């Protein structure tokens, strides 16, 4: 228990100390909100789909979460190459606890990042419809964060160095984001895109946020919740297995 706590605490300390990382990671969501939110707003309205800013904001919150989550999972590579991981691996504690502590830490900071972006979206013009559901939105944020931190950790466990990082950003994180329904509604999409968006776990995170914040859902909150929980457990298991196989 102590092991999990101290590893969790370490992630949080590192997060709050890298102010530039926090500010830097807010740039992209703000840009999306301003450029796309205001840019496509009029067209969205003319198409009879309502307020685009309100539609977009949950998507951008989800984006902030997935980026931070995958990154904090991938950070394992740094720890591994620069030795800190060795310090934890020769300690008399189980690898499972190390993995759980790290992942919970990463998920916590990603959720915080989501909350910060939520407040930013309010400043820019997002108006959530049902504030009573806010705690539930927080749960969806945390599940999304947990899922992608576990995925990041699983990937990082198999990577030797940072060479593969760009590959992950361009061929995994970006497609996951763009094809998640974060930017556009998932109705009436062409076949292949529709299939991809259905197997993309982020779609359920975005949908869950929309369901809780603006009361619009594509899959439905129950489905979102079940899929996010199920896939989180799956990724955590895979991540734990791969983490237990790491050799330093």
């Amino acid at each position: 228990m102590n092991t999990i706590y101290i590893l969790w605490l370490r992630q949080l300390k590192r997060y709050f100390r890298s102010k530039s990382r926090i500010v830097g990671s807010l740039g992209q969501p703000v840009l999306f909100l301003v450029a796309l939110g205001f840019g496509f707003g009029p067209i969205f309205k003319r198409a009879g789909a309502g307020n685009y800013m309100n539609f977009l904001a949950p998507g951008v919150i989800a984006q902030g979460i997935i980026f931070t989550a995958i990154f904090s999972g991938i950070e394992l590579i740094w720890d591994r190459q620069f030795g800190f991981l060795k310090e934890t691996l020769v300690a008399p504690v189980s690898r499972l606890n190390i993995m759980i502590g790290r992942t919970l830490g990463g998920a916590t900071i990603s959720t915080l990042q989501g909350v910060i972006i939520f407040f930013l979206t309010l400043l820019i013009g997002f108006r959530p419809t049902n504030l009573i559901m806010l705690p539930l939105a927080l749960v969806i944020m945390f599940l999304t964060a947990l899922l992608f931190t576990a995925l990041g950790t699983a990937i990082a466990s198999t990577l030797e160095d940072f060479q593969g990082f760009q590959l992950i950003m361009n061929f995994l994180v970006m497609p996951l984001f763009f094809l998640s329904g974060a930017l556009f509604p998932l109705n009436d999409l062409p076949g292949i895109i529709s299939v991809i968006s259905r197997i993309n776990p982020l779609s359920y995170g975005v949908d869950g946020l929309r369901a809780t914040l603006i009361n619009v859902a594509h899959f439905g909150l129950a489905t979102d919740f079940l899929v996010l929980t199920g896939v989180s457990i799956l990724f955590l298991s895979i991540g734990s297995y791969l983490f237990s196989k790491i050799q330093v």
Partner: protein
Amino acid sequence: MNIIEVKNLTKKFKDFTAVDNISFEVKTGEIFAFLGPNGAGKSTTIKMLTTLLSPTSGKIMINGFNPINNQDAVRKSFGIVFQDPSLDEELTAYENMDFHGVLYNVEKNLRIRRIEELLNIVDLWDRKDHLVKTFSGGMRRRLEIARGLLHHPKIFFLDEPTLGLDPQTRNQMWTYVSNLNRKEGITIFFTTHYMEEAEKIAQKIAVIDHGKIITQGTAEELKNATKTNSLEEAFLSLTGKKIRDEEVNGTDHLRMMRQMWRGKRK
């Protein structure tokens, strides 16, 4: 009594035999130097002794425990300073120590006392709340030594602890280590490429090359056997003068990248 016992230890990676049927013992309270050229099998052996790698065959006993079936007991028995830095640079010196104490389940009051005591010994108490990334190479090494001793280990492994340090820091570091050995009776197991260090501090030396231990004994015995005047000459006469190149791996790439970004570590 022997605190480390290694019998017929072998480690194979696919077709390559990194460690080939080696046997040796280290007595309790001894300072033991494990020498060999690059790629001789030193690091692989240390990894097996410290539970980071499991042997292909052979037997290891650390402080009376077998790393295969009593991993945690072995892990509590030793402290280690790795060849590469293993501190969290975004944490302070104190936080790095505290983190270690929690992982090793050192009781809170004892932990607080011990951290203060050790940081004083390595002259870092007044810097305890500074982030490690502001530390020089020598300070980091000292902190790693203090950290490795926090849980009162019986054995202290030092894998090339003086690599890249200036003579002053090296000298100071060995003074700490031999004091520890004298005062607390900790067994020291170290590797180094600086032969004069081994000659000066080690009570027993084993030389490994191509995965095999070629000789063991005191510095005097090694010099007499090879009819040389210094351990350096003895070492060269035992292992030859050919330069060994290790394969470049991901860690080396990153090390280069890191040096590029922030300048060489001082």
